[in-house]
């Protein structure tokens, strides 16, 4: 079943992902990066637990480990020297900390892209691009339609060629490649010719006339606007605090982080609230649904 955040307006979802991606790529603050990672993992688990956990252990955690290991090999800055490599370069504590943080950040971005791929389906991206580039979005829509159609036609052509003894299952590699090329040519000819026919049909039905509207299957509700305003306000507060230096982190020459105080806690809390917004959205809707269900 599609959950509540997946049913929101594409613009809301886009604003969420751009905010979280932008801030987590912009800064490598331990608390902020850690929050992004934890919330991305929770969001992935809430959306599709089984597949996400599989991806997490097979792909994302190895990526984090690679990210952690790469940095100390290339970066020898920092003042706390722990050890010397055989080639004489120092291994520093600062570069290890930096490596761990950059690994977690890479992991959070990968984990977030899992949710991005689940939530921002092609029709939603098409709607968003269509607002700015209507013709490009039309091309994307058509290409997405052509892919299954061509695959279907390809299987028909394959069967027909097999019938006349020119299939691709030959033992001789030379014949196999030759037959495959012939099939590719048959497909290409058919595709180009049918495309021209299709475009003539489009013209006949009035493509290119001005004052044409388009079908929009998404609705902007009151909640979408509230969520977007919330994300924009919290996001700009967090970005302001990062730029103005209220929340900062140094890795080189030595590791230093802003003092934990009321201001920093507010920023952390706002960022966590923004990151967790879809999780709250999904869980709240599920709770409401369960509480309203008839008990009979």
């Amino acid at each position: 079943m599609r959950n509540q955040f997946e049913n929101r307006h594409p613009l809301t979802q886009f604003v969420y992902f751009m905010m979280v991606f932008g801030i987590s790529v912009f800064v490598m603050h331990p608390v902020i990066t850690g929050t992004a990672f934890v919330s991305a993992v929770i969001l992935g688990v809430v959306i599709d637990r089984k597949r996400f956990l599989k991806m997490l252990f097979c792909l994302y955690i190895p990526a984090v480990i690679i990210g952690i290991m790469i940095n100390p090999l290339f970066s020898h800055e920092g003042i706390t020297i722990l050890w010397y490599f055989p080639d004489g370069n120092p291994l520093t504590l600062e570069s290890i900390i930096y490596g761990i943080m950059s690994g977690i950040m890479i992991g959070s971005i990968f984990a977030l892209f899992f949710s991005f791929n689940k939530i921002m389906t092609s029709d939603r991206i098409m709607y968003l691009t269509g607002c700015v580039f209507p013709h490009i979005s039309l091309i994307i829509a058509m290409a997405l339609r052509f892919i299954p159609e061509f695959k279907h036609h390809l299987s028909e052509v394959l069967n027909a060629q097999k019938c006349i003894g020119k299939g691709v299952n030959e033992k001789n590699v030379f014949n196999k490649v030759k037959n495959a090329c012939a099939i590719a040519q048959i497909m290409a000819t058919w595709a180009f010719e049918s495309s021209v026919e299709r475009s003539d049909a489009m013209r006949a039905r009035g493509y290119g006339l001005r004052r044409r509207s388009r079908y929009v299957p998404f609705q902007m509700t009151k909640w979408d606007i509230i969520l977007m305003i919330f994300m924009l306000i919290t996001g700009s507060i967090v970005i302001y605090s990062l730029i103005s230096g209220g929340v900062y982190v140094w890795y080189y020459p030595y590791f230093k982080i802003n003092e934990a105080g009321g201001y920093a806690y507010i920023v952390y809390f706002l960022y966590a609230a923004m990151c967790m917004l879809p999780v709250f959205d999904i869980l709240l809707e599920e709770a409401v649904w369960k509480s309203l269900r008839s008990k009979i």
Partner: protein
Amino acid sequence: MHYYLISAVIIILSMVPFFLMFERKRPQAREIVLIAVLVAITVILRSIFFMIPFFKPMLAMVIISGVGLGYETGMLTGTLSAFISNFIFGQGPWTPWQMFAMGLTGLLAGVIFSKNYTYEKKKYHVCIFGIIAAVLIYGVIMDTASVLMYTGEVSFKAFMAAYISGIPINLIHALSTVIFLALLQKSMIKKLQRVKMKYKI
């Protein structure tokens, strides 16, 4: 990691003018459908050869469409097929870079070859361009992207390590591009030029 953010933004912004140019032109229905067909064929070819690692036919198809139909079509086929194939294989931080590299290849192929292309005279030139595009354009851009994604720091050593470790992958990619260009070039470009002439696109 500022480097990744800034470079990704620059890359996305650099593609926007071409899209806007295409929109401003108010393209004909024929043009739109033909580009969509080329994109679909490219994506299908990628999904057929998905099983063989780094053996990708996409670059060859992008070059062919650039040579056959001009730089604008090449650029659009490149960017859009990188974008759409990632709907199947998963979007990620690499998407803008792939779009940019593919689009640039299609654009250059169109600029260099589309004016006076004949198979007999230019077949080797196109194949050599395919090798250069796979190693120097696509390979270098994607290796740069992976350095920016993984280390977030710009040091000469990290870049050299990425380029050197990328050489075998880029060579397989170049080999696959040349094979597909050799197999498909003649028939596909001929068909594209015929469609162009017959229907005045």
